[in-house]
């Protein structure tokens, strides 16, 4: 597999209440940012050559006019080798997706849309602080289809305070109705420094307990798999194998990736580095001719092994124990025989053809699986 490239567009119209991604609501810096981004790209010309996935995320990339996105993609193509059949994803806010914009997007080379719907329930949307309604979301999805996008992913959030199972199932039904190629269902994570995180602490009334979280997780998996989707990663579902996100897969199997823009992470070989989560710091460094890297780490073998285990056990494919042994010199099936047998008895993992893979119930405890 070739490396992937990620571009972080750090702008949003307004800040959602649960969000801890880096973005600013003023678009004053857009021109400076783009200029810096292009310079940053050039700085990596010698380290990366070919890519076969591009993911434009953020932030809200759909706040940029289509021309900007087009130019961005062209620049990438001019600087590196972006293979012809590359997966090119744009994260989009339903509020931005009207017919004109979508038609323009079609010409940019973007071939996959990931729409941040989150919910069709207006009460949930307003609690989350989203700037669109459920109806608008549905309209944006339909418009995307009409414009000709044939690989559409929908992001949804569950375990929102006050949300009951019935409401969540209704949201899933509405999503399924549309027959999207891809679905991401994220359990709401209450990040402490966000408005929602400050209001709802663990144990606050109205928040689901572990049993409820488990119910939501399992029911979601059951419902979507019954509808024919593959639950291929903890939070991700694909209508069939070809629609699993090729780009995200790279994060999970230590394929190299280059991240550009503020707060973006990159990985190559055994090194990971990430940019400043600050637009001014990012722009400033680049003006000085430096890469805008905030920190870099070189991973030890132990760290790589732990990551490989934890990331692998978050995917349905699981871990190929023979490959794992060759790479990390741990024979899981022998060294962890006893506990793996126990997990298998408990219905948490399967072992097939030398692969150790989590079941649906195993995915629900994937964090602990990686600590065996």
């Amino acid at each position, binding site marked *: 597999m070739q490396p992937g490239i*990620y571009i972080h567009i750090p702008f949003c119209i307004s800040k959602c209440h649960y969000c801890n*991604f880096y973005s600013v609501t003023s678009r004053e810096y857009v021109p400076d940012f783009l200029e810096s981004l292009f310079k940053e790209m050039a700085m990596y010309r010698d380290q990366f050559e070919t890519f076969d996935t591009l993911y434009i*995320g953020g932030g809200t990339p759909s706040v940029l006019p289509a021309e900007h996105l087009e130019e961005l993609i062209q620049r990438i193509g001019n600087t590196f080798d972006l293979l012809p059949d590359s997966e090119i994803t744009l994260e989009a806010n339903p509020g931005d997706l009207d017919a004109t914009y979508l038609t323009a997007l079609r010409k940019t080379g973007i071939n996959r849309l990931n729409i941040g719907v989150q919910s069709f329930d207006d009460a949930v949307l307003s609690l989350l602080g989203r700037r669109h309604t459920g109806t608008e979301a549905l309209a944006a999805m339909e418009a995307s289809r009409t414009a000709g996008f044939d690989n559409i992913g929908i992001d949804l959030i569950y375990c929102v305070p006050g949300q009951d199972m019935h409401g969540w199932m209704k949201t899933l039904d509405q999503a399924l109705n549309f027959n999207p190629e891809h679905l991401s269902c*994220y*359990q*709401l*994570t209450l990040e402490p420094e966000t408005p929602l995180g400050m209001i709802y602490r663990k144990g606050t009334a109205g928040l689901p307990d*572990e*049993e409820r*979280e*488990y119910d939501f*997780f399992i029911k979601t998996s059951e419902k979507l798999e019954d509808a024919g989707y593959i639950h291929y990663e*903890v*939070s991700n579902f694909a209508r069939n194998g070809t629609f699993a996100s090729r780009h*995200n897969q790279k*994060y*999970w199997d230590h394929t190299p*990736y280059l*991240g550009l823009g503020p707060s*973006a*992470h*990159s*990985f190559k070989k055994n090194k*990971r580095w*990430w940019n400043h989560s600050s637009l001014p710091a990012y722009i400033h460094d680049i003006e000085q001719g430096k890469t805008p890297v905030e920190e870099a*780490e070189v991973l030890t073998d132990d*760290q790589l092994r*732990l*990551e490989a285990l*934890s*990331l692998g056990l*978050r995917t349905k494919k699981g871990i190929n124990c023979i490959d794992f042994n060759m790479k990390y010199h741990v024979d899981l099936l022998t060294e962890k025989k*006893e*506990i793996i047998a*126990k*997990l298998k*008895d*408990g219905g*948490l993992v399967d072992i097939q053809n030398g692969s150790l893979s989590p079941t649906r*119930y195993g*995915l*629900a*405890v*994937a*964090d*602990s*699986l*990686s*600590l065996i």
Partner: protein
Amino acid sequence: MMKNIRNFSIIAHIDHGKSTLADRMIQYTGVIDERSFKNQILDDMDIERERGITIKSQAITLPYRAKDGNVYILNLIDTPGHVDFSYEVSRSLASCEGVLLLIDAAQGVQAQTVANLYMAMEHDLEIIPIINKIDLPSADVEQVMEQIDSQLGLDPYGSLACSAKQGTGIEEILEAIVQKIPPPKGDSESPLASLIFDAKYDPFRGTIIYCRIFDGIVKSGDIIRFMHNETTYKVEEVGRFLLTRQKKEQLSAGDVGYIIAGVKTVSDVNIGDTITLDRNPCHTPLPGFKEAKPVVFASVYPIASDDYEDLAVALEKYKLNDASFSYQKDSSVALGQGFRCGFLGLLHLDIVQERLEREYNLSIILSVPSVRYRFTLNSGNVVDIDNPSYYPDPMTIAVSEEPYIRATMMFPERYLGAVMKLCREKRGDNSALNYPSPGRAELIFEMPLAEVIYDFYDQLKTITQGYGSFDYDMIDYRESDLVLLDILVNGDKVDALAQMVHRDRARTRGLHACERLKEEIPRQMFKIAIQGAIGNQIISRTTISPFRKDVTAKCYGGDITRKRKLLEKQKKGKKRMKMIGSVAIPQSAFVAILKSDQT
């Protein structure tokens, strides 16, 4: 000159300012200058400071020029403050003629104030009440004076007030020590009689013996004899404790100081033993000697079996400075290679565990502590067993016996009913009740040691609201109906969790062990069954249900580092647990199953 010597201790409720006052007196008498003055010299171990108790006695000599123009030698002897070390305290107090009873002016008389007072009274010491912290806005000296009168039965007008923190009233205290505490009695012409109240290991000089000379003289070159041990040594050096050791020509009756005599380890010395001269011994040893024998036994295992050698080295080093600690090799099916260790009590055990972990950077597991039982087998052989792993085949046991103690408790009379009840619950027997002074009850009970070691003292403190003091002597072994209580985790016997218990106690202990393990063992990905069993009979059971959801939703955007760091942290936590089969059992579980619910 004996009339210029004063030997004393400071006793106080925790935090009432004992260490601060000691520092102040050291400063005032100028033993050390300001620059080299380190706070709280007297407690020199971290753990002591954190636990707020002084584990081992130390001593310091303060030369003081009094208002009468004479220079007095004030020997301050520090005392530990827990029943595991009550014997050491008693030897320190036996070396004194008086005590300063320190009381916080804002908090007034507290439980330990009373318990400590009782102890000082037993040694017939002159008691000077000191009201400390008078600088505090909340200080109420009048009220404390009233308490000294009514609760302690002491003359409040004999008390002094000070602020150890600000250094006010220190001179008055020093004057009172000179005027009120009697000088030591004794005769330098008589044969040497010297009491050992502490011993410390010095890597260059061997054992430093801390002692109080009652009669006679000792000097370098003398051949001394430890009367209990019946060993002899040649004295290399004697001296006093100033900031550092200060060599002297000789120590004579009334002095407090040290003797260095080529004694290799502290285990060669018994606290409370009498030192005399080999060629001219004293007639009888000084009274009150007891051998500080380990009474609680537990096995220590490294969490990572690679650490076994390191543990062996650490124990060897630790032992150099702790005569009451003993150990030998041991192994467990569940926990691998380790050591069986003997302790004075559970606090002693806690302290050893903490020091091994902190000072030697080891992660260790302790098995469930036990007392030493005695079995007479059908063959007529008698075996002493403190390790449940060696519990004899029940078919071969003719008689089982367990150790008994005589417990002496002192507390204000109003708690009598509650204390009696507690002692009965602990299978206490043959009680005796005295009233050494009005309102103060002394209750004596004979009880199985096994009932006492775990948390009896904590319970006693709770029901007497802290006013109870407790001490005990071993008396004998008595016949008892014992059984081996096994603990099974997911069907596997865990030998390190087994206990020898009285049959009547087995069921409650079994239930209790299951409950405590349920609290201590974190939930895991699968169900954990915990069972208590006697032989093949299951007497208690519980299950720890698995957790079902722990996964974080997002692991994308390439920020894998944050997630990994969390996992690394959890992994480190898990390293401090012992894997038994596939179940991770935390260190705390092993000791916890003995502690009662209140503690």
